[in-house]
């Protein structure tokens, strides 16, 4: 077991068990800021934990960050771990982050698809989906980023359970998705929803299911462009910014489309860096540079959300 967050290697890939154990260490070291909450169980009955960063109050305006909904995108879970530690250690040291946490809460789901993540460690490193079973098919798993109730079943999702973009039998059929939906709805005061994916260096905003501009498109575009400028200031990594539909492809049932449509204006999705040679097999020595640069963009979005209440 990792005995201290100081001895934990943030520049390495870890198993689910190690990350869950590290969460306990983080909580133990920052008891007045961080709590670990179980938001439900996965299809294979693994607990799903969010780290809640809060300095008090009840249902304060909050920011949601999830990573690893596509299990093979390992740099996202690793970036999530680094980021959670960064938030905990910078509170009280970084004036801006401290002021944010004095008025808002941050919820982080570092392993949004725990069954898939374990499967990538034990059976198939290239697994992307959940591990649920469907009657009438030998193939398992739905794409949890095609399963949200936002244009569900529309273009850019498959109805074939054997494909990687299978949308599942119905919206929120995947318990991993439903658990997040339940938390967001019961809380009722999320102001930002950020999903972290990898790879291809993109910062996206809604919609994916439609190529029409959302009402807040100019503002989201400008926030996104400023965020990626900050990101690029560290290592020069170049990001594209735009709606999902316009900068990659039309895709229905995505998480940030759902969050935007339920009223969470500042909804964004990241596609983190690749070096152009490794895809999902990004070497571990790239984890910390990726996390560091991503933090600059994330922090810009968080500060903007803090400064623009609605």
């Amino acid at each position, binding site marked *: 077991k990792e005995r201290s967050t100081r001895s934990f290697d943030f520049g390495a890939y*870890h198993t689910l068990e190690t990350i869950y154990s590290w969460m306990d260490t983080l909580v133990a070291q920052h008891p007045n800021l961080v709590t670990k909450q179980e938001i439900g169980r996965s299809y294979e009955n693994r607990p799903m934990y969010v780290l809640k960063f809060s300095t008090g109050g009840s249902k304060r305006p909050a920011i949601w960050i999830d990573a690893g909904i596509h299990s093979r995108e390992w740099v996202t879970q690793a970036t999530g771990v680094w980021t959670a530690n960064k938030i905990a250690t910078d509170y009280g040291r970084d004036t801006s982050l401290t002021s944010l946490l004095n008025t808002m809460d941050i919820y982080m789901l570092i392993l949004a698809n725990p069954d898939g993540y374990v499967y990538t460690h034990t059976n198939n490193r*290239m697994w992307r989906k959940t591990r649920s079973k469907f009657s009438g098919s030998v193939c398992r798993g739905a794409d949890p980023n095609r399963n949200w109730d936002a244009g569900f079943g529309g273009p850019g999702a498959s109805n074939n359970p054997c494909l990687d973009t299978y949308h599942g039998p119905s919206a929120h059929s995947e318990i991993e998705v439903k658990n997040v939906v339940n938390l967001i709805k019961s809380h009722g005061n999320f102001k930002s929803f950020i999903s972290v994916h990898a790879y291809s260096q993109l910062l996206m905003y809604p919609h994916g299911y439609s190529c029409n501009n959302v009402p807040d498109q100019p503002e989201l575009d400008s926030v996104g462009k400023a965020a990626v400028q900050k990101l690029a200031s560290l290592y020069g990594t170049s990001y594209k910014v735009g709606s999902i539909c316009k900068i990659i492809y039309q895709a229905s049932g995505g998480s940030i489309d759902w969050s935007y449509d339920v009223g969470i204006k500042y909804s964004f999705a990241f596609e983190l860096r690749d070096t152009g040679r490794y895809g999902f097999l990004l070497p*571990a020595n790239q984890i910390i540079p990726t996390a560091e640069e991503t933090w600059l963009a994330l922090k810009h979005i968080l500060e903007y959300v803090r400064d623009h209440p609605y």
Partner: protein
Amino acid sequence: ERVFVGDQVIRVNVQSEEDVQFLQALEAQQEWELDFWLHPVSPELPVDIRVPRSSLSAVKEYLHAHNIHFTVIIDNLQELLDEEKAEMEENQM
């Protein structure tokens, strides 16, 4: 564990809308069991495809036949996975 010995990941630097259409047709070709890491959507974005060893020659022939240029970015996926696993075990120790 599933192994990926001999699987390659190829990158297509898409040149035209016509290339996109040929690649989309390839995407629909289920028997080759291709895994599109980056999907064909526009001439502005590259396409990355993990090609199982058993489909390599067919896929490369298809691309050559349609004059679509590609490079191999991962020559043998299993080698990279073995390196990743060894590194993780070392870190764990």
